[in-house]
């Protein structure tokens, strides 16, 4: 059963098996082009595989949008150390719920993507790091991995090709921070998920200090179609430098929230109105968080743009993880800012002081507005405090907390002003009185 009705506007490449009977089984996978890309890649040189991925224009689907082929090319060869593949399945960016579906409906596509990455960089083992809350997903993956071993698609001498590869499953236990690649690696090593200082990057010193390819679930899932049908075909689906399709997660105030696979560069307003069924209850659009709660918010009049990494960057926001959070005209933006900040304050690992202190102070200041005790000087102070966090932390969590806050204060200042504390006989009180009169 699917969680939401598909849209006729979808272009199903990664999600083409969603809705098929027993879509997670090896039989269904093999009957629908499964593992063909692996066999093709086995005949290619590692350089050719990486070039094909580069040609596809695939950029990291976790949120950063780094070109995948280039990331793979950074893995050094012949260091004498083993090379690892690590899958980031710690999906926890608010607004994002796509990796769950990719693993639930088509786990073999992920396994095949991991295997092809292994061929490209010479790895013999891969780890899938799944967030602990996704227990049923882990069970589906366990079944798929067992089936693949059973039928000779994993393990020694896979399908007689002479290639050996193992896949292991690993689970987190509740920590947003572990979705950040270096914190994830710490967690994989059995430690608190605290970011590492980079360089060195994981490509050089990742899991257990060995060279590591670390990508998001969706990124790996795009690899089999790219190798099977060619990088050019995948690239042609999207816009220049933003190849392929993307799993967009539409949530919030729309009539048809859901996860939809659409070409990169799909217009955001069309996405909300035609795919997501428009703003609910006949209301007007107020704002959109375009790619998960870490992204600067866009006002309704800023949303007529193509959904790709470069267009969103130009609009001073981010495509992020593809989680589109839609807000109607009645949304209390101060409340939204506070809820987002509560999340980051809860999830800050505490390692870097600007993030640890910044998130908790911002939370308190935003709470003060919600309690009707906001001071006029607080409005600028919130923005300044948040700006002081930018670029001053080891991982992007500090920025992730600051960016949406800065944008909400700048774009919806009037809502903060409406929540100012009005003391009897104060200037604000008098001013407000005059305005009312």
């Amino acid at each position, binding site marked *: 059963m699917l969680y939401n009705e598909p849209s006729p506007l979808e272009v199903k490449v990664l999600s083409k098996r969603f809705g098929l009977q027993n879509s997670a089984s090896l039989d269904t996978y093999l009957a629908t082009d499964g593992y063909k890309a692996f066999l093709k890649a086995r005949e290619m040189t590692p350089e050719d595989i990486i070039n094909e991925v580069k040609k596809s224009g695939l950029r990291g689907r976790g949120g950063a949008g780094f070109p995948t082929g280039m990331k793979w090319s950074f893995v050094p060869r012949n260091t004498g150390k083993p090379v690892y593949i690590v899958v980031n399945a710690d999906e926890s960016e608010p*607004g994002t719920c796509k990796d769950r579906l990719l693993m639930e409906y088509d786990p073999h596509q992920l396994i095949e993507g991991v295997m092809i990455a292994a061929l490209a960089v010479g790895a013999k083992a891969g780890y899938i790091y799944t967030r602990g809350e996704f227990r049923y997903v882990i069970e589906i993956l366990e079944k798929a991995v067992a089936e693949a071993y059973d039928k000779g698609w994993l393990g020694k001498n896979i399908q007689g090709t002479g290639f050996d590869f193992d896949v*292991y499953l690993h689970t987190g236990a*509740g920590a*947003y921070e572990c979705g950040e690649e270096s914190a994830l690696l710490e967690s994989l090593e059995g430690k608190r998920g605290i970011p590492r200082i980079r360089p060195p990057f994981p490509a050089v010193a990742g899991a257990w200090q060995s060279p590591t390819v670390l990508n998001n679930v969706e990124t790996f899932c795009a690899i089999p179609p790219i190798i099977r049908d060619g990088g050019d075909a995948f690239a042609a689906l999207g816009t220049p430098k933003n190849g392929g399709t993307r799993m967009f*997660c539409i949530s919030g105030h729309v009539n048809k*929230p859901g996860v939809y696979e659409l070409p990169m560069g799909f217009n955001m307003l069309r996405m909300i109105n035609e795919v997501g069924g428009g703003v609910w209850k006949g209301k007007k659009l107020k704002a959109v968080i375009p790619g998960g709660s870490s992204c600067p918010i866009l006002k309704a009049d800023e949303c007529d743009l193509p959904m790709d990494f470069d267009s969103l960057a130009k609009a001073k926001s981010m495509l992020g993880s593809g989680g589109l959070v839609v807000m109607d005209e009645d949304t209390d933006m101060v409340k939204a800012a506070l809820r987002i900040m509560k999340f980051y304050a809860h999830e800050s690992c505490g390692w870097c002081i600007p993030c640890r202190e910044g998130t908790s102070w911002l939370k308190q200041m935003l709470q003060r507005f919600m309690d009707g005790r906001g001071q006029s000087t607080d409005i600028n102070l919130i923005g300044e405090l948040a700006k002081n966090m930018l670029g001053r932390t080891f991982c992007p969590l500090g920025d992730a907390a600051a960016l949406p806050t800065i944008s909400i204060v700048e774009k919806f200042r009037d809502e903060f002003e409406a929540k100012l504390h009005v003391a009897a006989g104060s200037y604000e009180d008098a001013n407000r009185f005059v305005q009312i009169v």
Partner: protein
Amino acid sequence: MTFSPELESRIEKMLTSYPPGRTRSAVIPMLLYAQDEIGAITQELIEEVARRCGVLPLQVEEVIGYYSMLHKKPAGKYHVQVCTNISCLLVGGEELYHHASEKLGIGHKETAADGLFSLEEVECMGACSWAPAVQINYDFHHKVTPEQLDALLDGIRQAQRVQ
């Protein structure tokens, strides 16, 4: 300490899943699966996990405080987790959490006197497009209304009485 045969075989597999000498990697999954079986992380479990993974009890202890799913206090038999993060908030997640709190008579991270239910206001669980979302133990429930939540909780309570 011995666990159920299923958990013993899972642990055995965990300990061979990582490169040689890297059994510390098994600490977090081992704690989580053992906690599911025992109900909470006890001092005895900490020492057992440390022994099996070849690390100091302190190294086990230090991750418990970090990961939100690991807990030393026993939760209810049914741990009700209501998400109030942004996507859920927009479509009634906060009201749903308060409704659950009133119905169960307990607050955030509290356990009912009979030990059947515990409640937690949780962060994003990855169900944003089907919000508001609730997880009871590991089971996801999507687009949950207060009435549906009542039915779910009443159903659990009734099934318990029959047992």
